[in-house]
């Protein structure tokens, strides 16, 4: 909507003059860099970009991006974003939230924005802890998490963000982690998807939940711990150089996934699944794949666009208004009327 001379932007153009107030070493810094690196590459313009957030460490994000930004109230960012996008569908809307903001207090709104399929990018920073309120366990914390509010360990079962998103009807589900070099690619895919694009970003809270994802994010664990999915490519992981390649195959008896060894690179012989981002059944299995027995599925798990909410609303508004000339005088004069003559 802004006909400005195209200027090539750099990550620097997306930095604000605000002092970043996250803890030194926080994973959020790496995510901020990844986003600032991504935005110029996707051709975004600061004037047309809106970052909407709720409350929590992650939700300070808009203050650090040189665009329009709205830091709203706890858990409600999806609802604000819905109003923004319906009022002006040409805006490029990003939602930044966390595991507490997006899945606890705001779980309801998260479900509805996904089922409605509002065109936006939803970045859920999952650090499995409440950071800004000083370390209480969150809805994604693993059972037994000791925190100020659970000194004897948490007893409730954690929510799985990607499974929640898919179950809510999301048409795009992806995963990445803060320091991953591949995060910008995941963000680009999310942006390219027309509709609600849900991205779970594992984020290291170095103060309250340090290294909770180290089992797959650390370099030494990357080969065995990370399964980077690519559409049309076999699901392979492991150290391919030393020949310990593994793959994901379907256990046809149990209708579950299984890890198989790939001998001499012959993944076809091992019946390794070729990733299809439009296969919803497969996506359901990937989001439920238990880490430990399996690697962590990363990248784009599911991407199958459907008509968006704002386009449906606009189309219906236009259809309902078609052929009707707005006339406020006529409107107030409608219904059963009568005239009182001059006495």
């Amino acid at each position: 909507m802004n006909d400005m001379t195209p200027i090539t932007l750099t990550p620097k153009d997306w930095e604000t003059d605000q002092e970043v107030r996250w803890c030194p070493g926080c994973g959020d810094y790496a995510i901020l860099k990844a986003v600032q690196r991504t935005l110029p590459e996707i051709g975004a313009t600061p004037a047309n970009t809106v970052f909407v957030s709720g409350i929590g460490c992650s939700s300070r994000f808009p203050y650090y991006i040189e665009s329009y930004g709205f830091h709203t109230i706890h858990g409600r960012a999806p609802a604000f974003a819905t109003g923004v996008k319906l009022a002006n569908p040409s805006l490029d809307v990003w939602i930044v939230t966390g595991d507490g903001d997006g899945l606890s207090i705001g779980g309801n709104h998260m479900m509805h924005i996904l089922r409605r399929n509002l065109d936006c990018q939803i970045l859920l920073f999952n650090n499995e802890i409440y950071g800004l309120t000083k370390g209480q366990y969150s809805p994604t914390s693993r059972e037994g998490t000791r925190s100020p509010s659970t000194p004897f360990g948490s007893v409730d079962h954690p929510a799985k963000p990607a499974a929640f998103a898919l179950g809510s009807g999301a048409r795009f589900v992806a995963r990445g982690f803060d320091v991953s070099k591949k995060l910008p690619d995941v963000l680009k895919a999310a942006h390219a998807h027309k509709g609600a694009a849900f991205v779970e970003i594992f984020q290291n809270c170095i103060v309250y939940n340090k290294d909770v994802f180290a089992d797959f994010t650390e370099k030494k664990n990357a080969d065995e711990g990370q399964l980077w999915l690519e559409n049309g490519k076999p699901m392979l992981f492991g150290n391919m150089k030393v020949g310990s390649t593994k793959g994901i195959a379907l256990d046809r008896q149990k209708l579950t996934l299984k890890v198989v060894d790939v001998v001499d690179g012959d993944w076809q012989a091992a019946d390794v699944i070729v990733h299809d981002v439009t296969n919803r059944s497969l996506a359901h299995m990937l989001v439920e794949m238990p880490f430990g027995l399996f690697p962590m599925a990363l990248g784009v798990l599911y991407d199958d666009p459907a008509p968006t909410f704002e386009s449906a609303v606009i189309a219906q508004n236009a259809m309902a208004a078609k052929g009707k000339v707005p006339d406020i005088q006529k409107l107030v004069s409608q219904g059963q009327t009568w005239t009182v003559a001059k006495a």
Partner: protein
Amino acid sequence: MATVAQITPDIMPMAPIAPDAVVVRFAGDSGDGMQLTGGQFTLSTALAGNDLSTFPDFPAEIRAPQGTLFGVSAFQINFGSTDITTAGDAPDVLVAMNPAALKTNVIDLKPGGLIIADTGEFNDRNLAKAKYTANPLEDGSLAKWQLLSFDISQRTLESVKPFGLGNKEALRCKNMWTLGLALWMFDRDRQPIVDWLTSKFAKSPVLADANIAALNAGHAYGETAEIGGGGLDLKQLHVAAAPAPAGLYRTVTGAEAISLGLVAGTQLASLPMFFGGYPITPASAILHHLSRLKEYGVTTFQAEDEIAAISSAIGASYAGQLGVTSSSGPGIALKGEAMGLAIMTELPLVIVNSQRGGPSTGLPTKTEQSDLYQAVYGRNGDAPMPVIAARSPADAFDCAIEAVRIATRYMTPVMLLTDGYIANAAEPWKVPDMASYTPFPVTFMEEPQESGFLPYGRDEKLARPWVKPGTPGLMHRIGGIEKQVDTGHIEYSPANHQAMTELRRDKVLGIANDIPDQAVEIGQAGGKLAIVGWGSTFGPIYQAVRRARAKGLDVSHIHLRYIWPMPKNLGDLLKSYDTILVPEMNTGQLKTVLRDQYLVDARPLNKVSGQPFRIAEIEAAIDAALA
């Protein structure tokens, strides 16, 4: 003096000397279609040129168990040839479709008033459900009233026989038979109702025909039957048209008037409207009305909850439309935090609160004025917000426009208070001439500012600029954290919070310079007694003060539209009276605010029964205050 003209037994129904006002109440089972009957009778009344006011009173349950006392649904209408501002204190005529309806309503009927009862429903089963040990139609217990009882059910069945409906469906035409009789009683034209039935049942003409036949049969019964019993002979009553200024009129409910006012307001502001709502009684009607008005730049969004409804509206305001949300007490409570954000981010927003009895779920379908504290004070922090209140269905139109004007001129959320009574009640409305309204178009900041852009810079009214996302060169961030003066950057310093709190307060208080001085409705400044009201108590207060003044009492009526900030002259005006009495359908909320603001001895007159004030109740309080 119109509202409660006596229809004594000797003139009604025996000798029909035209009264200048009549109160009729239709009461039946919640499945009997009493609201529909009342609505159509209202239409015919309006078309006959009478002034009128209605009071629909129905249970919270959609179809409460048949025949029960709590399942009774009633519709009262007061109509006359003079100025009508209330639904009337006590009915002259009660139409009771079953024993429960009789039992719960007859107590309100004037002595000598007329009961029309359907004997077909006064069987043992229904009598037991209504907890009657004997049939009141036969045991003489209704002696102080006139009774016309006959088998409406049977007559309805006979009238619709040719259409081959099932028994249940046929009996559902009972309300139209009754309406037909009522139309005859008050000398009304049937054609508008026939037209309405034809269009309502366009898809099943046989139902239209059956209902029309029932309507005609009821009318013919009045015309031809000699109604026996105690020698009663029902006669027609013609209530003359009320004198009214020349022009085009229509009936309007509060919910309709608010919807139309919001559309008119956004048109005057040259803005599209975004309405975020969530279903709640009695506010949903506004969402229903607006959802049909897309051609006026209206987008309606039924959100997943009350919080999402207001949040989406604020998001839309941020993006450059006028965000509007609407609810009732419990939903308004849920929206409180988001209102604080709108105050902090200084975005325009209109919040309509159709008040109902509380706290908690309270009385979903009954009226109350008990959200005044919530409107003025009900948020965390020092969170000033303008509040205005509508006095009647028709007044709600102008109030909605005023809410839009204040919200956009001052970059602030505004709460518009109405209540269940105003939302559902109908009254005649002189269709406004839209050309007589001065537009107040909004100006967005669109150009880069040479001296540097200050998102929280302010104009002479202390309003900050409205900048739409999408505007090049004016990117900025807003949020709920305290802002630095001018720049809007995050800033927690003590002096800054002091300054910003005062700015937010002064901006809202400054609206007092932009609203009319408080007028005296009836009477004059100074004197023995002022009755100070707000909202839907207008009608009964107005009539009570008129009557008291007719008796020579020194009493004036002051009615507030602006609850916050209050008009600049209000303090001096209040202090010019010896006594101030504040009738409210709560336990004294405006009374407390007046005491706080002006240190005046405002005295409460409270009613929290879920029913509007009766004129007589306020009249008695006036007498007592001046005794």
